[in-house]
């Protein structure tokens, strides 16, 4: 295997085609592995093609309820036996669901990797959904939703999604509503599992103190003969209809001391060509340094908020581009005004060459830090596979970032952010 010429020390440490091992099992499971022998531990991470997009409105939260119930008892072990096996060796494993996929992640000392794989396979292949455990889980989910209803930040985000993604599946919270969680029966969980969980489109990433060949053997051993001919194709997403004017919506949560606000619009998909220019623009707007221009105006100069920043959330489908802040309830309008003004300035005037250069340097310079731990590398590998970025993505990444111009940034910001067509969500007393 040849190493690329004249790589710096930093680039040599980034994951690339010569140290990421990828294999596709006959049943469709994609396995990715990168070895790291610096610590005697191992991380697994991955997903199955089953998410809340398959949920009906009446039973919203079914995919997530199913995912969380997978480890409540299997054909081989009951709930306590599953967690006794895990916790006795200091390992962890969790499964939950998003809009598109059911994701899992776990970690263990490397000697316990076979056990971790056994437990994962048992959970996804042969769950029993014991009635008693389903009811215990339901009470926990309902309490989680009661806590969510009291969380100003969660409720502002949820309301923001309802405005931006109106009539789109992304407007729905993946963990459902109290009434939909109440409506789900054990039979629904069994059916969802039988129909939607399967190997096609499944990805599993293993990073840590294990040789790739050993990692592949482990996956093959427990999942190689898994089949599910009933697995449906992923649902097709409708387009998002852009707002035709700004929409403000407030959720009142009495007795709270602080309000949260989220202001923004829909954003690019991860695979759109606009993604990297938009990310860099977002960095200037509300990330770079202590939260970019938004942090400077709302926190540093006006002293209105402990946190005020922007985010670009891009995935398989349309994303969102928003600014969030937590402010005193008496300052909501003032803060919202400042944020809207900054968005307008950003769209009108764009970013300076210096600002862009700063964020470009940050995006490239931070790679070693974000890829330092096994979990960081696993996350990077998962994203490469999820979005088909290529195993050499991190080797090409610096050049892609450096190629972005201020003109491209202003162009994408004008495409997605319209100062007179913003979603404004507030949750507070």
């Amino acid at each position, binding site marked *: 295997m040849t190493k690329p010429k004249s790589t710096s020390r930093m680039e040599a440490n980034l994951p690339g085609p010569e140290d990421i091992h990828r294999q596709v099992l006959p049943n469709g499971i994609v396995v990715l592995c990168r070895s790291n022998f610096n610590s005697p*531990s191992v991380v697994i991470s991955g997903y199955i093609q089953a998410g809340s997009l398959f949920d009906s409105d009446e039973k919203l939260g079914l995919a997530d309820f199913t995912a969380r119930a997978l480890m409540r008892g299997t054909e081989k072990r009951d709930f306590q036996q599953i967690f006794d096996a895990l916790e006795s060796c*200091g390992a962890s494993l969790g499964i939950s669901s998003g809009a598109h996929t059911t994701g899992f992640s776990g970690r263990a000392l490397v000697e316990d990797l076979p056990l971790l794989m056994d437990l994962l396979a048992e959970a996804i292949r042969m769950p029993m959904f014991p009635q008693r455990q389903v009811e215990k889980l339901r009470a926990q989910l309902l309490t989680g939703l009661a806590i969510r*209803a009291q969380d100003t930040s969660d409720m502002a985000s949820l309301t923001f999604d309802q405005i931006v993604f109106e009539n789109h599946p992304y407007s729905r919270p993946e963990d459902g509503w109290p009434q939909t969680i109440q409506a789900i029966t054990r039979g629904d969980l069994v059916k969802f599992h039988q129909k939607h969980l399967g190997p096609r489109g499944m990805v599993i990433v293993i990073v840590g103190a294990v040789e790739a060949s050993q990692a592949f053997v482990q996956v093959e051993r427990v999942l190689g003969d898994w089949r599910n001919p009933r697995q449906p194709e992923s649902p097709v997403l409708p387009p998002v209809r852009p707002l035709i004017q700004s929409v403000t919506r407030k959720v009142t949560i009495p*007795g709270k001391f602080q309000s949260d606000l989220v202001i923004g619009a829909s954003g690019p998909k991860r695979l759109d060509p606009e993604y990297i220019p938009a990310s860099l623009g977002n960095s200037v707007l509300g990330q*770079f340094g202590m939260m970019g221009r938004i942090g400077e105006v709302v926190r540093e100069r006006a002293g209105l908020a402990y946190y005020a920043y922007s985010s670009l959330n891009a995935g398989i489908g349309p994303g969102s581009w928003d600014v969030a802040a937590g402010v005193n309830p008496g300052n909501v309008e003032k803060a919202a005004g400042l944020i809207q003004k900054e968005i307008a300035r950003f769209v009108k005037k764009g970013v300076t060459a210096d600002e862009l250069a700063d964020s470009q*340097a940050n995006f490239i310079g931070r790679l070693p830090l974000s890829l*330092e731990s*096994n979990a960081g590398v696993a996350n990077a590998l998962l994203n490469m596979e999820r979005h088909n970025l290529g195993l050499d993505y991190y080797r090409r990444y610096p050049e892609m970032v450096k190629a972005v111009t201020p003109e491209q940034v202003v162009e994408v910001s004008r495409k997605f952010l319209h100062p007179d067509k913003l979603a404004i969500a507030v949750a507070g007393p």
Partner: protein
Amino acid sequence: MTDSITRTKLSNGLQILLKEIHTAPIISHWVWYRVGSKDEQTGRTGISHWVEHMQFKGTPQYPASVLDKAISRDGGMWNAFTYLDWTTYFETMPADKIDLALRLEADRMYNSLYDPKEVASERTVVISEREGSENEPLFLLSEAVQHAAFRVHPYHHEVIGDLADLKSISRDDLYNHYRTYYQPNNALIAVAGDFDTRRMLKLLRELYGDFPAGPHLPRLSRAEPIPSGEHQLTVEGPGETTYLEVAYRSVAGLHPDFYPLSVLDSLLAGPSNLNMFGGGGISNKTSRLYRALVEKELAVAVNGGLTTTLDPFLYSIMITVHPSRKPAQALAALDGEIKRIQDELASPEEIARAIKQARAIFAYGSENITNQAFWLGYAEMFATYDWFTSYLDKLAEVTPKDVQRVAQAYLRPQERVFGTYLPTGSGGSQ
């Protein structure tokens, strides 16, 4: 992980701990000051944390915006934390960029500006931070419990401070606090990562060697008297969920009973993760309290919290009560489990399991250079770095009898605070 470190002290009293790690081109650099919320007098609560915020507002040489941009441009991360016993600042940078971080920390040990305008805008930022915390029922409950647990000892207030003091602390109060405590003899520098020890030491000597030592600083510490009965309290607030916090007196991190208490915590509520970065926790579904409370549908969650402090702090158990149960039912089950661990010896297997869990958490934490640098300094704030390197061995010496003894000695109902968060309903609307 290897644990060979270099430790030295400059003539002005500045302690330095260095650990070379060459697994990634990263260096993590921390400066620790022996000052925290425990050093604050009434009327000045929250001042250590606010000073920490002001330390990001610049010096004549490095104005605020310049610094922040410089660190970010190089792909570094930096932040700071204030706790009961200490305040710490760190930068984790690509190895070839660490120079700036070293220089800026040396500079801001003395030269921060505390511009009155910046003080004014930061006052509302800190108040906003407190208001954000007040939105959380668990903050309101633990603040009340902590206050009830410490009438005399300065652990009685939250690190963020009381609103009254956040409104009244002046620019000069902040500056005086800064100048009093930010001295080389009250500081410790910890660096871990991809560097050469000899060169790093030379650089640190150049940067700090000429700073004069400040006066000796006694820590504020008034021993908390032993309480003469259980203290019960309730906090009311919005929501539908009832929370309980039961707080027992713990020991200082340096106390030999910390090890058996750590095993006890693991048995009761699952292992506490002491890592600050990385190291992911382990679930606690087979712990005794989870089985007795959550599996029996009296609670939907239970957690234990044991922490390492300079003076004895609290061992807290937090319970999220099941929506169809009363707090008293959950408390009775908790008391039953505590009586059981006081009356019956735990099995050696159960203890071996707690030790394996701790070993795993240590291994996960060692993946991360920032976390390793954190431990270099953190352990010195309540013990020495040996505490960290010998921790697993000490834990392995714990016997079932030790666990029973500390359960009897520390989990005494007449010395605990029992707090309830009583929800007054949601009443939300859209």
